[in-house]
C-alpha cells in the first residue's frame, strides 16, 4: 500500500508542470552561475572551489524554503483542494501508509527537483572556461565529492528539515496558507539569526542554532585563506554535527508527531468555528410573500462615485489587513524595524544614540524587503480578489464605472503603503522614547517618509499593479512580478548595470545628516521619483486598459475592450505620463551623463587601463617640488562651489632639467574643476597637451627649470558641483559641513594610484601583473619621495579662507585674524615650522569647545573641538583622548610640534577620521553620537582620537618614504600608540575585547585577499595588515619585551628621523632596526615571525583541572597544545617550526569589576613560559580558588580560534 501511494505520488508529481518549472528555475540559475563563474569566491579562489560550492548550496537551500513549502505543503492538502478526501479515505488504506507514501514520495520529488542546481552547476562550470566570463584558470577540474558531501550535509538536510515542517503543518491543520506563511516566517527567523551573527560574541550560539547551517559553515571557513578555500572541505565534525543533529532531529520529530497524530476522521471533519451555536434568532414568522420590495431611489453621480471609490478602497484595505499572510509578514516586518533600530548602528560593538536618521535608515535593512514582498503579493491579492472567491461575475455586473473599481484597488494599496510608511515613524519614536532620547525631529521623519519613501512604495505598487492587470491569473502574475524584480536586481548586482535611469524604481542613494540635513540630495531624488512615478502611472493606465472585468479573457476581446476604454481622457493621461517620463528622463540623463560623466563599471575599468597605457610613460618623471604654500579659498557653501587660489614656491630638487609641468586632475567626476589662471613667476603657461579623459595636462615652462631652480606658481581654480550624478554623495562642498583637502588642486605628474590593481583585471587588459604599488626599500625614487605626497617634501603653509557669514572655516595653522568683508567671514591661518604637504579646508556652522593641556614642562596646547551645536554628547571623551595622548606621547616620543590640536566634525557621508597637521576632521557618525553609557563597551572615540593624535608624531613628524612597508610606520605605529594610551586609561581587560575584534578583522581580511598577503615590512596596500595585524603585533611585542623598552627604541627613531629634511627618507628597514636593537636575542624569533613572515598560532587548552590540597591551597593542572605555523601570502602552509615560544600561561579567579564599572579578569597567576609546539603540561599551586586557566588568555598571539585558549577548570577526580 505504501509502495502504491509512493509510486503514485512520484508519477503524479513528475507529470505536473510545476515540478519541472521548479527544476527548471534551479537549473537555469545554476547554469547562469556556472557559466558566468559568479560564485562566492574571491579572485584567488576557484569559482568552483569546494567552499564556494558548499556556500552556494546552503544559500540556495535557504531560498529553497519556498520550494519545500510548495512541494511538501501540498501532498495532503491536495485531497482537500480537489475535494477528493471524501472518497479517497474510504478506500482500504491506513493513515500511516497514506502519510508515509505521500511524504516520502514528495520528499523524493523535492530531492530530485533540488538536484537541478547541482547538475546545472556541473554543466555550467564545464562550459565556463569556454565562455570566459571568468578566466579559464579560475575553473578547477570537476570533483564530484565537492558536490555530494555538501549536498548530503547541508543541502538535503535543510530541505528535509524544512519539508518536515510544512508537511506537518498542513497535515495537522489542513491550512495550506500556514505553509506559505510558515515559509515566510522561517525565512524571517533565519534573517534574525543572521543579524545576531554580526556580533562576534554570539558566534558559537549561532553556529549551533542556525537552522540552515550557513552561519555555522561561515564561522568555520571565515578565516580560511584562498589556498585553503581551494583545497579544503568542511568535515562533518564538531559543532556542525550538533547543528545537523538538532535540526534533522527536529524535522524527524515533527514527522513522527504527524504520523501518530494524523487521523482520517479528524482530517475530514470540517472546521466549523467553535463558537457556541446561538439559539436561532427569534423566528417571527413573517410570510415572505406578504412583504413588498420597497421602491428605491438610485443615484449615479460623480459625487457618489467619489464616495464609492473611497468606500471600496476602505473595504479593500480591510480585506488586506485581515489577511493572515499580511499580518504575519507585517508583524515580522515591524519587529525587524524595531529591533534593527534597537541594536543597529554599533561602532566597534558600541551602540549609537537613537538619532532620527538612524531610526529612518533601518527601513532599508530588512523592513523594505518584507514590505516589498507584501506589496507585490498584496497587489496580486487585491486585483484578483473577486475572482478568487468567484464573486467576479456579480461584482462585474454592478453599475460601478471601471475607473472606480480599478482606482479603488489602487487607492487601497496606497492607503496600506501609507500605513506601512508610518510604521517607521512609530517604531522610531518608540525606540527613542525607550532609550530616553526626546529630541524628536518630526520634520526629518515626515520629509523622509512622506516625500521620499512613500512615493517609492507607490512605484513598487504600480509595477505590480500593471503585471496583475495584464496577467489574469494570480499565480502566474506573482511569478512574473517577482521575475521582473529578480531580473532588475540581477542586472544591478550581477551584471553591474547601475544606471538608475534603466532600473525601474531605482534612484541614487542619499544620506541624512544632522549637520547638513537632506542636503543636496533632494533635487536628484525629486527627479528620479518623478521619472519613475510617471513610468509607473503610465503602466498603471495601460494596465487599466487591459484590466479584466467580467469573464472574457480572450486576447481579441481584451484588445477590443482596451480600445473601448481608450477614450480621450485616458489618451490624454497616457500622453501626460509619457511626456513627464521622457522629459524627466532627458533631464536626469543631462545631469548624470552630460554634466556628471556617468560611466558604467566596465567603462571605469577600461578607463583605468587606458590611463596606464597612455600615461604610464610619465611615471616618476622629474617634477619640481613644493616648498611653500599659500592658499586663498573663497567658499560658497550656499552654491556648493569655491574659488581657490594657491601660490606655491617650487624647487627643482632633481638632478635633471625640467621643461614641463604635468598637472594631473584625475578623471572627471562630479566635483568639477575649472582652471581660471596658471602662471609661473607671473607669466602664463602654455598648454602643450591635454588628455581630457584622464584630466591630464602638460604645460611647458617658459624657461626650463635647472636643478635647484626656484619658481613661484600661481593657480586659480573654480571647483563645484553641477546638477546631480547617478550616484555618489558629492560631499566635498555641501551647504553645511564642507571638507576637502589639497587634492582639490591637481598633483604633479603621473600617479600609480589610478591604475588597476586586480591581477585579473590587469591580465584582461594585457597589463603586467603588479605585485607591489611601491618600490622596495632601496629604490632611489622611493627613498627620495614621501609616502603621502610626492609633490613635496616638507613645506611651510599659510592661508586665508572665506565662507558664508554664519559659518566658521578652518585650515591648518594658527588663527591670525578673523574678519567680515562683503558679507563673508574671513579667517587667516598660518603654520609655524614645517609640515608635510597635506592640508584641509573645512567650513560649517560650528560651536567651539575649548580646553587647555599643560605638559610636564609647562608647555601648553589649546584643544579646540568644532562640533555641530547639538552634538555635545561625547566632547569630554574627545578632549580626554587628546589630553591623555599628549601626556603619553610627549613623555615617550618627544615634544608635540604644535601649540594647538583641533577636532572638526564633518557630515556623515563617510565614516572616518583623518589627521592633518594639528587638525583632525572626524565624521559625524564616528563617535559624536556614540552611546558610551555601558562601561564594558569600547570607548572607540577615545581610541580613534588617540590614533589621530599619534599621527602627529607618526606621519607628521616622521613622514616615511614612498617605499614598501612605509604605511606601517604611520598606521601600525599610530595604532600601537593608541593601544598604549588606551591600556593606560582603561586597563588590560578593555584591550582584549578590542584585540579580538582586530584579530577577527585581520583574519577576515586575509581570507578575502585577492592578491596575496604581504608582510608588515613590505605591505603597501593592505589596510587589514597595517591596522589590524600591525596593532596586534606591536601590542604583543611590547608585552614581550616591555613597553618602556620598546618606547625607547621609538624615541630613538623619532630623534633620528623626525622632519628629516632630505632624502633618503625613512623606511621600514630603519624602523625595524630600531625595534631589533631593543629586542633580546632570545625573543628575536617573534620579530621574524611577525614582521618578516606570516605566522599563525593554534593555542588551546586540552584539559584543565584543579584540586584542593590539605593546606587549603589549590593545585592546578593544565594540559595545553600549541602549534605555530608559517604560511605564504596565499595562505599555503609552509612549515611548522619546532622552536619553543614564549607564551602566557595564566590562572584566574572570579571576574571582578574595576573603578570604571568594567568587568575584569582576576589573575591569580600569570607568567610567561617557553612552550614547545605540541602538547605540554603545567602544574601550579595557588592560594586562591581558581576558576579558569589557559594559554595566551588575553589573545595576544594571532590564533584562528581564540576562544579555546581559556577554559573553566574542573575539579579533578581522585
Amino acid at each position, binding site marked *: 500500500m505504501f509502495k502504491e501511494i509512493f509510486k503514485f505520488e512520484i508519477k503524479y508529481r513528475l507529470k505536473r508542470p510545476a515540478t519541472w518549472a521548479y527544476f527548471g528555475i534551479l537549473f537555469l540559475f545554476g547554469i547562469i552561475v556556472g557559466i558566468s563563474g559568479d560564485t562566492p569566491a574571491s579572485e584567488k579562489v576557484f569559482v568552483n572551489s569546494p567552499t564556494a560550492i558548499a556556500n552556494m548550496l546552503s544559500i540556495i537551500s535557504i531560498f529553497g524554503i519556498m520550494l519545500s513549502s510548495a512541494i511538501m505543503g501540498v501532498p495532503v492538502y491536495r485531497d482537500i483542494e480537489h475535494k477528493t478526501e471524501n472518497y479517497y479515505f474510504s478506500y482500504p488504506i491506513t493513515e500511516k501508509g497514506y502519510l508515509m507514501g505521500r511524504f516520502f514520495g514528495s520528499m523524493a520529488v523535492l530531492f530530485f527537483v533540488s538536484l537541478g542546481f547541482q547538475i546545472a552547476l556541473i554543466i555550467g562550470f564545464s562550459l565556463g572556461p569556454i565562455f570566459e566570463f571568468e578566466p579559464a584558470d579560475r575553473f578547477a577540474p570537476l570533483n564530484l565529492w565537492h558536490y555530494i558531501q555538501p549536498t548530503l550535509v547541508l543541502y538535503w538536510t535543510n530541505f528535509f528539515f524544512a519539508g518536515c515542517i510544512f508537511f506537518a503543518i498542513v497535515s495537522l491543520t489542513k491550512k495550506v496558507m500556514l505553509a506559505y506563511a510558515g515559509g515566510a516566517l522561517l525565512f524571517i527567523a533565519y534573517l534574525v539569526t543572521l543579524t545576531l551573527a554580526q556580533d562576534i560574541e554570539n558566534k558559537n550560539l549561532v553556529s549551533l542554532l542556525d537552522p540552515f547551517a550557513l552561519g555555522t559553515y561561515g564561522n568555520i571557513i571565515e578565516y580560511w585563506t584562498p589556498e585553503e578555500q581551494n583545497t579544503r572541505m568542511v568535515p562533518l565534525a564538531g559543532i556542525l554535527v550538533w547543528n545537523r543533529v538538532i535540526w534533522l532531529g527536529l524535522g524527524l520529530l515533527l514527522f513522527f508527531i504527524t504520523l501518530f497524530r494524523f487521523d482520517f476522521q479528524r482530517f475530514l471533519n470540517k472546521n466549523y468555528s467553535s463558537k457556541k451555536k446561538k439559539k436561532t434568532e427569534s423566528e417571527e414568522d*413573517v410570510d415572505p410573500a406578504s412583504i413588498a420590495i420597497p421602491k*428605491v431611489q438610485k443615484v449615479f453621480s460623480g459625487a457618489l462615485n467619489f464616495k464609492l471609490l473611497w468606500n471600496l478602497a476602505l473595504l479593500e484595505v480591510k480585506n488586506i489587513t485581515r489577511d493572515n499572510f499580511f499580518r504575519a509578514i507585517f508583524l515580522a516586518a515591524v519587529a525587524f524595524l524595531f529591533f534593527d533600530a534597537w541594536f543597529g548602528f554599533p561602532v566597534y560593538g558600541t551602540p549609537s544614540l537613537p538619532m532620527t536618521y538612524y531610526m529612518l535608515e533601518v527601513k532599508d535593512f530588512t523592513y523594505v524587503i518584507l514590505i516589498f514582498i507584501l506589496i507585490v503579493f498584496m497587489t496580486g491579492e487585491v486585483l484578483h480578489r473577486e475572482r478568487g472567491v468567484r464573486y467576479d461575475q456579480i461584482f462585474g455586473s454592478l453599475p460601478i464605472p471601471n475607473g472606480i473599481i480599478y482606482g479603488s484597488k489602487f487607492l487601497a494599496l496606497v492607503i496600506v503603503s501609507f500605513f506601512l510608511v508610518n510604521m517607521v515613524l512609530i517604531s522610531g519614536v518608540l525606540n527613542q522614547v525607550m532609550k530616553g532620547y526626546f529630541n524628536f525631529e518630526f520634520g526629518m521623519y515626515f520629509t523622509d517618509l512622506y516625500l521620499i519613501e512613500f512615493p517609492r512604495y507607490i512605484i513598487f505598487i504600480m509595477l505590480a499593479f500593471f503585471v496583475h492587470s495584464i496577467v489574469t491569473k494570480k499565480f502566474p502574475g506573482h511569478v512574473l512580478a517577482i521575475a521582473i524584480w529578480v531580473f532588475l536586481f540581477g542586472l544591478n548586482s550581477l551584471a553591474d548595470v547601475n544606471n538608475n535611469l534603466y532600473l525601474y524604481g531605482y534612484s541614487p542613494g542619499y544620506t541624512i545628516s544632522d549637520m547638513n540635513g537632506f542636503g543636496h540630495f533632494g533635487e536628484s531624488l525629486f527627479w528620479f521619483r518623478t521619472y519613475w512615478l510617471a513610468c509607473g502611472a503610465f503602466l498603471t493606465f495601460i494596465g487599466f486598459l487591459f484590466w479584466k472585468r467580467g469573464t472574457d479573457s480572450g486576447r481579441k476581446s481584451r484588445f477590443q475592450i482596451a480600445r473601448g476604454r481608450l477614450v480621450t481622457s485616458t489618451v490624454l493621461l497616457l500622453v501626460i505620463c509619457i511626456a513627464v517620463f521622457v522629459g524627466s528622463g532627458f533631464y536626469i540623463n543631462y545631469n548624470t551623463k552630460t554634466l556628471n560623466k556617468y560611466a558604467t563599471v566596465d567603462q571605469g575599468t577600461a578607463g583605468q587601463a587606458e590611463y596606464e597605457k597612455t600615461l604610464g610613460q610619465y611615471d616618476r618623471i622629474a617634477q619640481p617640488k613644493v616648498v611653500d604654500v599659500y592658499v586663498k579659498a573663497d567658499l560658497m557653501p550656499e552654491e556648493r562651489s569655491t574659488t581657490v587660489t594657491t601660490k606655491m614656491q617650487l624647487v627643482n630638487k632633481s638632478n635633471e632639467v625640467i621643461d614641463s609641468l604635468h598637472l594631473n586632475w584625475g578623471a572627471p567626476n562630479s566635483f568639477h574643476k575649472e582652471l581660471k589662471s596658471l602662471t609661473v613667476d607671473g607669466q602664463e603657461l602654455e598648454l602643450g597637451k591635454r588628455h581630457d579623459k584622464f584630466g591630464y595636462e602638460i604645460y611647458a615652462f617658459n624657461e626650463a627649470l635647472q636643478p635647484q631652480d626656484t619658481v613661484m606658481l600661481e593657480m586659480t581654480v573654480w571647483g563645484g558641483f553641477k546638477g546631480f550624478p547617478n550616484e555618489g554623495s558629492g560631499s566635498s562642498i555641501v551647504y553645511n559641513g564642507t571638507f576637502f583637502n589639497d587634492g582639490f588642486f591637481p598633483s604633479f605628474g603621473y600617479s600609480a594610484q589610478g591604475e588597476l590593481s586586480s591581477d585579473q583585471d590587469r591580465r584582461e587588459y594585457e597589463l603586467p601583473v603588479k605585485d607591489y604599488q611601491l618600490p622596495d626599500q632601496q629604490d632611489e625614487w622611493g627613498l627620495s619621495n614621501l609616502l603621502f605626497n610626492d609633490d613635496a617634501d616638507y613645506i611651510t603653509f599659510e592661508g586665508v579662507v572665506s565662507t558664508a557669514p554664519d559659518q566658521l572655516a578652518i585650515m591648518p595653522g594658527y588663527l591670525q585674524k578673523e574678519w567680515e568683508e562683503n558679507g563673508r567671514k574671513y579667517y587667516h591661518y598660518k603654520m609655524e615650522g614645517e609640515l608635510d604637504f597635506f592640508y584641509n579646508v573645512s567650513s560649517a556652522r560650528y560651536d567651539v569647545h575649548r580646553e587647555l593641556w599643560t605638559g610636564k614642562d609647562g608647555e601648553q596646547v589649546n584643544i579646540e573641538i568644532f562640533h555641530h551645536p547639538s552634538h555635545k554628547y561625547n566632547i569630554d571623551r574627545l578632549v580626554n583622548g587628546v589630553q591623555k595622548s599628549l601626556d603619553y606621547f610627549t613623555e615617550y616620543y618627544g615634544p608635540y610640534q604644535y601649540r594647538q590640536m583641533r577636532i572638526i566634525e564633518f557630515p556623515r557621508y563617510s565614516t572616518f577620521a583623518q589627521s592633518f597637521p594639528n587638525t583632525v576632521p572626524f565624521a559625524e557618525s564616528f563617535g559624536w553620537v556614540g552611546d558610551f553609557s555601558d562601561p564594558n563597551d569600547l570607548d572607540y572615540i577615545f581610541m580613534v582620537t588617540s590614533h589621530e593624535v599619534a599621527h602627529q608624531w607618526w606621519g607628521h613628524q616622521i613622514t616615511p618614504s614612498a617605499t614598501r612597508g612605509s604605511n606601517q610606520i604611520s598606521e601600525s605605529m599610530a595604532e600601537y600608540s593608541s593601544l598604549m594610551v588606551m591600556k593606560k586609561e582603561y586597563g588590560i581587560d578593555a584591550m582584549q575585547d578590542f584585540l579580538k575584534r582586530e584579530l577577527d578583522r585581520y583574519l577576515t581580511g586575509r581570507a578575502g585577499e585577492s592578491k596575496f598577503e604581504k608582510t608588515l615590512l613590505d605591505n603597501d596596500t593592505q589596510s587589514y595588515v597595517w591596522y589590524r595585524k600591525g596593532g596586534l603585533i606591536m601590542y604583543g611585542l611590547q608585552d614581550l619585551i616591555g613597553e618602556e623598552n620598546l618606547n625607547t627604541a621609538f624615541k630613538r627613531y623619532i630623534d633620528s628621523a623626525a622632519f628629516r629634511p632630505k632624502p633618503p627618507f625613512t623606511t621600514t628597514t630603519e624602523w625595524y632596526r630600531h625595534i631589533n636593537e631593543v629586542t633580546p636575542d632570545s625573543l628575536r624569533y617573534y620579530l621574524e615571525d611577525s614582521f618578516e613572515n606570516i605566522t599563525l598560532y593554534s593555542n588551546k587548552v586540552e584539559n584543565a583541572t584543579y584540586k584542593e590540597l590539605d593546606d587549603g591551597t589549590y593545585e592546578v593542572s593544565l594540559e595545553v597544545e600549541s602549534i605555530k605555523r608559517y604560511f605564504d601570502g596565499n595562505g599555503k602552509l609552509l612549515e611548522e617550526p619546532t622552536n619553543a615560544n614564549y607564551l602566557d600561561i595564566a590562572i584566574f579567579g572570579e571576574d571582578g569589576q574595576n573603578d570604571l564599572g568594567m568587568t575584569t579578569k582576576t589573575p591569580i597567576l600569570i607568567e610567561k613560559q617557553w612552550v614547545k609546539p605540541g602538547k605540554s603540561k603545567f602544574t601550579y599551586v595557588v592560594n586562591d580558588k581558581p576558576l579558569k586557566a589557559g594559554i595566551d588568555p588575553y589573545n595576544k598571539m594571532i590564533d584562528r580560534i581564540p576562544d579555546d585558549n581559556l577554559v573553566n577548570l574542573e575539579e579533578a577526580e581522585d
Partner: protein
Amino acid sequence: MELKIENLNKTYSNGVQALKDVSLTIPNGMFGLLGPNGAGKSSLMRTIATLQQADSGSITLGDIDVLKDKSRVREILGYLPQEFGVYPKVSSYNMLDHIASLKGISNKGERKDLVESLLTKTNLWHVKNKSLGTYSGGMKQRFGIAQALIGDPQLIIVDEPTAGLDPAERVRFHNLLSEIGENTIVILSTHIVEDVSNLCHNMAIICLGEVVAKGNPADLTNQVAGKIWKKAIDRHQLEDYKNEMQVISTHLKAGQTIIHVISDDKPDASFETSSANLEDVYFAEITSRMESALV
C-alpha cells in the same frame, strides 16, 4: 422595454463557437432559456450582463446599446450567475447593504428597508448576521437571488437559479420571480423544462450555440401536438428503435423503459398517443442535433 438580440456571434479563444448567429426578441415578462449543458446559455446571458464581448451582432435594450454602453445596462441590471462565490467573512446583511450602495442606492434608510425586505423575501432573515462562509448551498443561492433583485432592476438575468433549492424554496422563488416579472424583463435559464412551462410567456431553446426554437411555450407545444407517440419497450431493443424511428426521449416508469417518438403518423400499432408537452418539444429539438454533433 424590449431586449433585442440580433445576429450575435462569439467564438472563444480555444476555438469553441459559443454563439452562432443568435437573434432573439425578449419583451417584458419571464423569458425561459432552455438548453443542454454547454449549449451557450451562460455565454448568452453573460454577454447580456456586460461581462463578455461579442464578436459580432448587436444587443439593444430599449435605446441602450448593450455591447457599447455597458454602464447604462449595469444601472438597471440584476444578475445571478450560475456559479458564484461570496466573501466568506461578511454577513449577508452587510454584503447586501454594500451591494445596494454600489447599485446607487445612496439613501441609508431606503437601503435598510430594501435589504430587510429582501432578506425576508428570500427567507434569510434569521441568518442575516451570520457570515456568508457558513451558509449552506441553498442559503447561498437565496442570497444570490436577493442580491440580483436589489435596486429595482429592469432587466433580471438568472442563470439556473433554483439549483440546490428544496422544493418549497423553489416554489417560493418562482412566485417571487413571476411577481417581479410583470413589468420587467426576466431571463431565466434552466434545464428544468417544467419550470419554463409553468412560468414563462416566452422562451427559446438553444443548442450548440444556436437558437433552435423560440416562442410561447404553449404554441411550441401545440406544434408537436398529435405527433408524439409512446411505447413501453424492453431495454435491449432501444437501439433497434433508435435506428428505425426518431426516438426523442426515453425514461423509466415502474421499471419499464418508455420511449417517446415523434412522427406525423403512428409508427406502428404498438404505440399509443401521448399528450405533447414542452419536454417533448425540447427533446425533439435537442436529441437529433446532439447525436449528430457527437458523430
